[in-house]
């Protein structure tokens, strides 16, 4: 039956030739794990495509909901944590594997005639990979992604002549806003995948045309081994290792939360992804009028090195020991790139944006009011209102205005938008120190007296009133949010200190309030980013995966032994 179906297809479609093209190849010197790197890239790409499509079921590329839709995926969709974790770590691993693959091909001299086109298509694929990385980060629309996107598109803007044009093309306008997000999203999910598939087709067919280069030492080239199943067997083992590694990373090192993108928060010091650190850091060495050397010059020289390599290095010798010059060039290049990247990694960030020097209208603006309140009586909300109000009205922040409830004497009002944003506890700690510590004490443990209040002192936030506490992060945030949004008057005859308003008057942005809440939850032992619907607890899932793999591998091993014995 199967044979007949096959026959039927065969007469209508070139099944056999295509299968042969895909798997029939004699590898000089036989299969090797070193040759698995290309396959590993392909496997991770397949995973990126699938996990990327999975994310599309939940993610929306809008500035007001991108961050929340991603948080929703990660905390409230069963196995959403796995989907996003795999995509995030897959992206990092992808770049490492691509670089290793390039290094392997370089070492083997596989770029030489007649394989130049394979090399060129491969280099183009590397650029596409970097493009994925560049456009993927800002899609989180968190602080990190937003600011990295802001700065990197600005860098593109400094390029002479074409700069302004390029920046507008990337952003869809002057601002890093909705059009920029839509654009990055479309490029990431539609344009780059399409280009990648075309380039991959060229790369793989060009590669098959001449096959693997094999060892450079002539004696080692015989006997050869088949690609199928020998090399694919090794690729399958590599792929399995990569899969388990990615699952482990998603389980044990979930990507952090840097808080929802906040265009008003200039205290955030952005740093690019590690794979762009070299370009980022090298910019710093070219001040002022020499900047184009960094923005255009260095990347162009690097690209030219890769593009021209197979044409300049025409010596057919492939043994690395017998081509010292080109090896030296490569080693120097690698060392410089790694060293500059490390320096970039260690550097504190952009010199122009230290939090203290520039100051944030939204974060530092309120501190004096609180200090005064501490001394005598809390200033009413107007204290900080005008200060930050102007800045706010002209910003994307105004999208939040539709859900603001004013409820003057409160703690009683409705929670605002911040209650539904998964904030960053780390960023919140900083805000807490500036805005809350003067009254609530560092770490939320207070000794500050409050005369005339029923309690006689400012309430502790750590541990917080049991009425407000909840082990469910969302509920907890909803309970404390009204106090921060609308302020509150503590019970008592005539309390000297009142809780000031932070939300209604835009003294803090909703993003900042969300971060504060994450920190307050953290002080009380609750993770704001807790996974509500895991599908399966990450660690249990990892354990299950390891056990399943182990059992299957043992069974396969047993089968092999049994066959071997029968043979004897």
């Amino acid at each position, binding site marked *: 039956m199967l044979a007949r179906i096959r026959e039927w297809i065969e007469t209508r479609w070139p099944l056999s030739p295509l299968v042969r093209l895909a798997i029939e190849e004699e590898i000089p010197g036989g299969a090797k794990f070193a040759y698995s790197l290309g396959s590993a890239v392909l496997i991770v790409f397949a995973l990126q495509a699938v996990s990327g499509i999975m994310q599309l079921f939940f993610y929306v590329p809008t500035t007001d909901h991108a961050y929340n839709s991603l948080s929703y995926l990660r905390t409230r969709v069963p196995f959403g944590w796995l989907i996003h974790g795999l995509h995030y770590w897959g992206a990092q691993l992808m770049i490492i594997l691509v670089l290793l693959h390039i290094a392997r091909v370089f070492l083997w001299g596989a770029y030489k005639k007649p394989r130049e086109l394979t090399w060129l298509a491969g280099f183009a694929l590397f650029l596409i990979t970097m493009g994925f990385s560049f456009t993927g980060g800002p899609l989180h629309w968190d602080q990190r992604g937003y600011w990295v996107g802001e700065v990197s598109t600005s860098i593109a803007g400094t390029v002479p002549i074409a700069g302004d044009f390029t920046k507008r093309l990337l952003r869809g306008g002057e601002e890093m806003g909705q059009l920029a997000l839509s654009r990055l999203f479309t490029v990431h999910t539609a344009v780059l995948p399409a280009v990648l598939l075309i380039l991959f087709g060229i790369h793989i067919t060009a590669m098959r045309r001449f096959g693997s280069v094999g060892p450079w030492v002539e004696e080692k080239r015989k006997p050869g081994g088949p690609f199928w199943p020998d090399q694919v067997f090794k690729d399958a083992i590599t792929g399995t290792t990569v899969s388990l590694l990615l699952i482990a990373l998603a389980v044990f090192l979930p990507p952090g939360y840097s808080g929802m993108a906040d265009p008003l928060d200039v205290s955030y010091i952005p740093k690019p992804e590690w794979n762009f650190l070299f370009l980022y850091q090298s910019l710093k060495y070219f001040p002022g009028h020499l900047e184009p050397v960094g923005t255009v010059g260095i990347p162009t020289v690097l690209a030219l090195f890769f593009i021209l390599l197979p044409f300049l290095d025409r010596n057919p010798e492939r043994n690395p020991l017998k081509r010292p010059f080109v090896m030296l060039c490569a080693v120097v290049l690698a060392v410089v790139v790694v060293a500059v990247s490390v320096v970039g990694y260690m550097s504190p960030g952009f010199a122009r944006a230290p939090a203290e020097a520039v100051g944030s209208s939204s974060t530092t603006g309120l501190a004096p009011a609180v200090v005064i309140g501490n001394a005598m009586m809390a200033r009413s909300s107007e204290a900080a209102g005008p200060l930050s109000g102007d800045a706010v009205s002209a910003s994307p922040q105004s999208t939040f205005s539709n*859900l603001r409830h004013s409820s003057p004497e409160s703690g009683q009002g409705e929670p605002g*938008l911040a209650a539904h944003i998964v904030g960053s506890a780390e960023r919140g700690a900083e805000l807490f120190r500036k805005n809350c510590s003067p009254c609530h004490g560092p770490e939320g443990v207070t000794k500050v007296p409050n005369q005339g209040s029923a309690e006689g002192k400012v309430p502790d936030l750590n541990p917080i009133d049991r009425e407000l506490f909840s082990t469910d992060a969302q509920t907890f945030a909803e309970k404390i949010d009204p106090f921060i949004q609308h302020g509150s008057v503590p019970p008592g005859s005539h309390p000297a200190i009142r809780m000031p308003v932070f939300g209604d008057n835009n003294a803090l942005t909703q993003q900042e309030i969300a971060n504060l809440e994450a920190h307050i939850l953290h002080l009380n032992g609750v993770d704001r980013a807790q996974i509500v619907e895991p599908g399966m607890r990450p660690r249990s899932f990892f354990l299950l995966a390891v056990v399943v793999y182990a059992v299957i591998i043992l069974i396969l091993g047993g089968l092999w032994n049994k066959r*071997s014995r029968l043979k004897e």
Partner: protein
Amino acid sequence: MNEPRHEAIDPASPERRGFLVLVIGVLASLNALIMGIPFVRSLFGAARQRKAKWSKVGEVNSLPENGPVELKFRLLTEDAYHYEEALYSVWVIKYATDKVTVFSPICPHLGCHFIWDPKISRFACPCHASVYSIDGKVLYGPAPRSLDTLPAKIENGTLYVQWERFKPGTPEKITV
């Protein structure tokens, strides 16, 4: 993974080849399943346990006693990652200052909004012509069950309602 017995087996033997193909198939399937099953699972979503939330609907004293009245109220609704205030309505029938019945405005047949027809003193659904008595019993039409009541309470003369939705088209009232 196993003891080296390779010397016993010719690298090109069909046994070895067959075994490699088996391993490739098993590992590929395993990798696809270990991630594929969770991926598919994610699409089915989670069974949500909604938190019961009381919405203030109105003052009981101001309600008429001579028939059902439609009351509207605002509620922060949760639709995945969208949190928006929306206007909801319920049908309230006051029997005494401490006794009211609250009906969901959604017809249990197929989810249309029914109306109160004062001429015949009955609830009627314009979509498929189900007709209900004032206490919610089905009088005519395709409706599979009585009108759905909503949890309600009166505190200090204020009426609070818990908004819920029910599966349409089933004889039993099932909360969704």
